[in-house]
């Protein structure tokens, strides 16, 4: 036995059979050493109970403060100084770095590229992932195999994905331009024009993430109560109608979750544009056609050594991501409440209507079961008569 807790006396009281003297009493009467030991144990037990939780959460908080939070906050300190890679901390310049960046066309170019690539990947991805999830959400054979198959791209790392697609999108010899030429379409300048390069980079992101998101949406679809589908089916709704009327509204929270995670990741895209075109001496394309914001800040900080301005970029991107997260959050909140109906009375009515519908469905199912059991009973009876 190890340490007694502050409930020790209760606990021993419980375990001692009635009629026998309690161990507490014997200790108190006889052995002062034993008593002292007990009290020390008791005190340690209380200490253990009270402070252990802090001990368990502290490694996380200490490490997170050091390597997650501190750098983020210190980025702001760097951003209000004229800081450079070699010279170290320069003089305090206030918001000059921010002003300089806001008036820099390169900064806006990087934001445009980031958002363009993000939209080109997020929207098709959500649509296709929902479609794949709906296909997987059927009574198919070899379920696990098909689910695993859409996840294969996820185990190919972004670096490898970029290398593979960079070859396929090669302007001279790449697979895609070769195929286009065989159907008499002019080759596309995938690596040196704005929209084609954004499409190519979005394709890489989509390839890697669509199956992953499809599985998340599939899980949400499978959590939709079966009764809803059954009652709608009994009322004559076909599978397409049920998909739009039941499945889609039910998985909306999960879709918002997917959008939020895609936003946080998508606005920090770096690997794909960095490695897409190694023969360009400027990171992100010869004319910065696909230089995203993180790539821009990396270039600013580590190629040009301007830590101050790069930190200002980092902080502005940070604020943009938080802002979009908050907008998503409130938007999803208002969607949820509007779908439930504005007033409380309205909501209560809806809830009652929903309850009623489910009860109706259940009674219908129950009556089906009854008639089913009657049929089987009848058949059985018939057999026994023969």
């Amino acid at each position, binding site marked *: 036995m190890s340490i007694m807790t502050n409930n020790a006396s209760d*606990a021993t009281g419980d375990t001692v059979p009635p009629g026998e003297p309690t161990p507490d009493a014997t200790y108190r009467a006889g052995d002062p050493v034993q008593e002292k030991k007990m009290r020390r144990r008791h005190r340690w037990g209380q200490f253990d109970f009270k402070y252990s939780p802090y001990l368990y959460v502290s490694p996380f908080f200490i490490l997170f403060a050091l390597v997650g939070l501190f750098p983020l906050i210190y980025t702001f300190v760097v951003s209000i100084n004229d800081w450079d890679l070699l010279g170290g901390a320069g003089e305090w310049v206030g918001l000059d770095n921010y002003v300089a960046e806001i008036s820099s066309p390169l900064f806006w170019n990087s934001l445009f590229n980031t958002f363009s690539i993000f939209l080109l990947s997020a929207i098709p991805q959500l649509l296709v992932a929902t479609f794949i999830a709906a296909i997987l959400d059927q009574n198919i054979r070899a379920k696990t195999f098909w689910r695993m198959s859409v996840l294969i791209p996820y185990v190919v790392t972004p670096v490898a994905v970029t*290398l593979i697609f960079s070859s396929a999108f090669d302007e001279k010899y790449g697979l895609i331009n070769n195929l286009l030429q065989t159907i008499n379409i002019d080759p596309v300048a995938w690596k040196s024009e704005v929209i084609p390069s954004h499409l190519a980079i979005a394709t890489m992101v989509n390839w890697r993430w669509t199956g992953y998101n499809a599985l998340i949406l599939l899980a949400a679809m499978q959590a939709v109560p079966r009764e809803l589908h059954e009652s709608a089916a009994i009322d004559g709704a076909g599978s397409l109608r049920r998909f739009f009327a039941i499945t889609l509204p039910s998985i909306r929270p999960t879709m918002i979750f997917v959008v939020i995670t895609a936003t946080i990741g998508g606005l920090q895209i770096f690997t794909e544009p*960095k490695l897409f075109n190694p023969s360009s001496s400027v990171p992100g394309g010869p004319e910065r056609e696909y230089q995203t914001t*993180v790539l821009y800040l990396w270039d600013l*900080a580590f190629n040009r050594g301007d830590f101050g301005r790069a930190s200002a970029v980092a902080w502005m991107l940070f604020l943009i991501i938080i802002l979009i997260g908050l907008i998503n959050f409130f938007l999803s909140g208002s969607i949820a409440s509007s779908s439930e109906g504005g007033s409380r009375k309205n909501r209560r009515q809806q809830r009652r209507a929903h309850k009623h519908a489910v009860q109706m469905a259940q009674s219908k199912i129950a009556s089906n079961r009854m008639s089913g059991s009657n049929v089987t009973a009848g058949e059985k009876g018939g057999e026994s008569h023969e």
Partner: protein
Amino acid sequence: MSSATLAKTTAAKKSGAKGKNFSMDRRPGFLTYGLLIAFFLGSTYPLWYSLLIGSNTGAVFASTYPPLLPGGAFWTNVAEVFNTIDFWGALANSVLVSSVITLSVVTFSTLAGYAFAKLRFRGRQGLLVFVIATLAVPTQLGIIPLFMVMKEFGWTGSLGAVMVPTLVTAFGVFFMRQYLVDVVPDELIEAARIDGASMIGTFWHVGVPAARPAMAILALFTFMTAWTDYLWPMLVAPQNPTLQVALSQLQSAKYVDYTIVMSGALMATIPLLLLFVVAGKQLVSGIMAGAVKG
């Protein structure tokens, strides 16, 4: 009730719940399987393509039609990969970095997640809200001060510097908390306590066994994320590269030989493909479980 009638009613229930006319239970037709095969081909063709290019010579790559079958130059190309980068050294670095990060994240997340889910202490609610709030914080944007600190300490170029920023994640803590809050009954912990177990003893004998499935999933995803990372290892330790960094160095030359790059990309993908063969099912169920838990 006799066993015969019991069997009858369960049979009836089954036939009622799975009505013949209900389309959710019908096996789907050819269209569905055709689409599934199309998804499968879409998921695998880029890898197949990398094998096609990586196993042929540059002349084949430059021809108009892509080759239909792998050629015989794969091992020549792989030998060239080994000449260009220290493939095995980078592989060892990646294994080491990812393993240490995984061990650290899983240990500290389980401890903290257990405390948040099952122990009562002052400030618990506030700290948990803090963890949830930091889920959405892009910590990657703190690379500039992180780099400065590493340089100050003279850690640049070491694998330790690669590991440090991701030794804990808010996601891990939240994930373990969500799992443990339902799985371990409060009575069990109370009982262990009344029996005189210490707090750490209760954690070890009650918390950890219950947490094991979630720990496995968290380990899998943490390992994948660490393995995949490129920006930070490239920045802080290019002279001591992980596999991703080494792989990217394959195409850093002015002239890019895609046959070598492709065979390298394929070689670098094999470890994770093996992991996928072993643990793909767990990955699928992990993603699906995470979605429902939120």
